[in-house]
């Protein structure tokens, strides 16, 4: 069990407290730098509690002289706070009392590891620099760090002094996986537990045998490893990159596609945002099917020629895999790597890093340019965790470029402005309301059917659903049927197969956990299936020409404004058939449907105006 020591350093009347897992290194470090006196306050195996105490003590100690009396007071304060935390922890746990409270001991101040320690400052410093060059720009949990160093053939226990050395030199941060805080209220005091990695306070309390005391782990980011009170979370900011300006003659981009005039303007805007220094964030708002990826190329080229790394974060693994060969082709001279849960290049470095959103959590102040694809898509959606991750991955003074067809309201307010009539361009955004083929978006038809769910289940006649679907099937237009929940895939499929028996064999249903998901979508693409019942998993990214869309149960809460707009955007994707059927069936109107309809109409109106003015030139 590793114990963390809390001590106060006093030097010329100024005092500050520090945390260390190996006190000897601190002694060495301070001897070397300024030689203040160190007073040990106590130790605990839970990093979170020591961390919280440090904050508290730092506030207290700032303007005081350290006498034996004040030191005694500080120790008392620490013990009282820990006791209070234990009581609150037990109280919030409900009726049962806390079995293992938080522990903090001031006895056995100097530990016995003193004689075992035999390293000189120079050795540690050299090791620390080596470690830093490897770890920079990453934020890792202890287990991940161990794994990372194993890959580089370093044993973790031996690097502890080097890590602490870096922390003292302010080049690395030790943090607890879960932070503890006290909140005092007039009604009751509370203990705040918050995951420091993902920022969520959805934690699960438990008795931990690693630290032998009360602990908690985060349930939000559990898939990325357990972030606990006693797990150190180590963040190493990247060194400010030496900007090497490449020679102007060197062309990094090899792409011979052509833009439409509006696309060209948007691409130029994005490039100018990257090269200029005045804004931190930029939004490319382009409707579904406007060709967003291509718009990025000039901006990316600009960033690369400034000598920085680029992070491209997209919501799903399929998209990462699809983008990798495309970008490799377009930027032949650069190292492009794909980072996702099961990728082999996870711990490597590249000039262009394409990552799934969860992997972004593992970077820290690294990239001068971060491009976020589909900001409104599933994992980001109403999830502060991933926005936080993106903000963390950006280097000091770096830039964020957002791409979306349906940006969330907060982002619209921040980057587009709050007026109802939307401007097409500004310093912080560019709006592309038209598809590449220049036709308007199909406007959804909304039909209200009472007791829709029950009718589907019982197999009652539903001409409003059956007739348009049968028509599309006859005309050999592929049709998506979206349902809100997994259970309804089977129900809707059975209903449609029963009501249109002629085409029953050309229908299939998919959901996220379906083992045959990929194969079914492939067969649908090839036209072997004429109809695909699906949950929201296919709401974006899938482009099939001539397709029609029906949403059964559009009033369910999983369908919000953004997802309805995206679903409507599945229809009419090709040049030959720019309009398609978009039908929403619901039992009642919802705000989401109203707003989606409004947004689609607004985009079409803007596109029409743009045509009339004939180009919006800046």
């Amino acid at each position, binding site marked *: 069990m590793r114990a963390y020591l809390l001590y106060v350093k006093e030097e010329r009347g100024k005092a500050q407290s520090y945390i260390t897992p190996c006190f000897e290194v601190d002694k060495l470090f301070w001897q070397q730098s300024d030689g203040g006196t160190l007073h040990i306050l106590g130790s605990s195996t839970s990093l979170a509690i020591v961390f919280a105490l440090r904050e508290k003590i730092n506030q207290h100690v700032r303007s005081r002289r350290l006498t034996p009396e004040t030191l005694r007071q500080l120790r008392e304060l620490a013990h009282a706070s820990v006791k209070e935390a234990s009581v609150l922890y037990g109280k919030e746990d409900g009726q049962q009392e806390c079995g293992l409270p938080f522990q903090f001991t001031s006895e056995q101040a100097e530990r016995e590891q003193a004689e075992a320690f035999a390293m000189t400052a120079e050795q540690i410093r050299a090791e620390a620099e080596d470690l830093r060059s490897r770890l920079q720009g990453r934020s890792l949990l202890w287990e991940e760090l161990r794994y990372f160093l194993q890959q580089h053939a370093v044993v973790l226990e031996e690097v502890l002094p080097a890590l602490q050395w870096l922390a003292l030199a302010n080049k690395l941060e030790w943090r607890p996986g879960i932070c503890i805080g006290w909140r005092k209220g007039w009604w009751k005091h509370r203990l705040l537990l918050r995951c420091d990695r993902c920022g969520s306070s959805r934690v*699960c309390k438990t008795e*931990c045998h*690693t630290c032998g005391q009360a*602990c908690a782990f985060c349930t939000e980011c559990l898939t990325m490893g357990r972030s606990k009170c006693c797990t150190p979370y180590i963040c190493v900011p990247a060194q400010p990159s030496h900007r090497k300006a490449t020679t102007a003659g060197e062309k990094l981009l090899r792409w011979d596609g052509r833009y439409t005039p509006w696309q060209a303007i948007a691409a130029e805007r994005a490039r100018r945002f990257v090269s200029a220094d005045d804004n931190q964030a930029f939004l490319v708002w382009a409707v579904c099917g406007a060709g967003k990826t291509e718009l990025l190329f000039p901006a990316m080229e600009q960033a690369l020629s400034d000598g920085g790394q680029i992070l491209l974060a997209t919501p799903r693994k399929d998209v990462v895999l699809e983008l990798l060969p495309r970008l490799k082709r377009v930027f032949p001279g650069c190292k492009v790597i794909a980072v996702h849960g099961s990728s082999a290049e996870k711990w490597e470095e590249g000039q262009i890093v394409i990552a799934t959103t969860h992997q972004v959590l593992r970077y820290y102040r690294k990239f001068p340019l971060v491009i976020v694809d589909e900001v409104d898509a599933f994992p980001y959606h109403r999830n502060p965790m991933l926005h936080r991750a993106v903000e963390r991955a950006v280097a000091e003074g770096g830039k964020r470029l957002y791409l979306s067809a349906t940006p969330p309201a907060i982002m619209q307010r921040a980057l587009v402005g709050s007026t109802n009539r939307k401007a097409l361009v500004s310093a912080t955004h560019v709006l592309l309301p038209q598809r590449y083929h220049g036709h308007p978006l199909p406007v959804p038809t909304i039909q209200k059917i009472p007791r829709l769910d029950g009718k589907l289940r019982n197999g009652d006649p539903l001409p409003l659903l059956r007739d348009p679907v049968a028509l599309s099937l006859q005309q050999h237009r592929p049709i998506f049927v979206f349902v809100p929940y*997994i*259970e309804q895939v089977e129900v809707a499929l059975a209903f449609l197969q029963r009501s249109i028996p002629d085409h029953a064999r050309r229908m299939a249903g998919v959901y996220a956990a379906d083992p045959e998901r990929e194969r079914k979508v492939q067969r649908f693409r090839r036209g072997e299936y004429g109809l695909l019942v699906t949950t929201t998993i296919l709401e974006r990214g899938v482009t099939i020409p001539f397709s029609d869309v029906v949403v059964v149960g559009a009033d369910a809460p999983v369908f919000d404004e953004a997802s309805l707009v995206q679903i409507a955007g599945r229809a009419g994707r090709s040049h030959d058939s720019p309009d398609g059927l978009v039908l929403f069936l619901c039992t009642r109107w919802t705000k989401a449907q109203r707003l989606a309809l409004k947004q689609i109409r607004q985009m079409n109106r803007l596109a029409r105006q743009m045509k009339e003015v004939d180009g919006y030139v800046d």
Partner: protein
Amino acid sequence: MLCGRRKRAPGREREVAAMANKLVAQAFFPIVYRLLEQAAICCSCLRQFPLIDAPFCHRCGRPMAGKREGVCGDCQRFGRDSLTQNRSLFTYNEWGKALISRFKYRGDERLAQLSGCLLSVAFYRYYADRRFQIIANVPLHRLRLEERGFNQTQKMTEILGKNIKVPVLPLLDRVKSTDKLSKTQGKAARFRSMKSAFRLNPEPFTRFQGRTVSVLLIDDIYTTGSTIRSCADTILYSGVVFPVEVCSLTLFR
């Protein structure tokens, strides 16, 4: 909870009732119904429970489809056994692997509630007519416990103990840090590596001076039975003077 579907779906009560009916005799239907109703489990997971049905081996609970009733070949070969009987609720299939990997290896301790619930259901299915004085779980080695931070079997066992109101006592200590059993191949190798891996803590027995003590051992998975049998051996042959009987219950096998 496990598969990401909604727990509350129309028709769930009916499914739960059908499953509870299938699982236990009528007398215990209300208890099992309530347990399953509260468990965080959806209809479709409920439907695909890989239950072990009769006929199974009277000794180790192995499913013996298509054979006559009795004791399976392995147990006959084993001869005199320290373990009176073992019972398991499910076969260890993909669903079980998903549950165990999330609970044990990913460390999602919220699943303790669900596993404990299923364990209680298993208890009512197989052991409702027996009386136990002590429940004990298979312990982890200290180092493994420190690394993982929790003992999944202990968490399950505590919930079982609370449900059936039998004390859970720390009967055993693990003194030998074996390799992961799932990595040890071969039955003989497994038995060899588990030999004298545990030590008895006789203190809980003192309160049952002189009476016959029935112990229920809990583990998550029964594969060859080497762990459970080693535990039973330790309990039986570590110099306890009064009569002891050991049964075991696992979630999967």
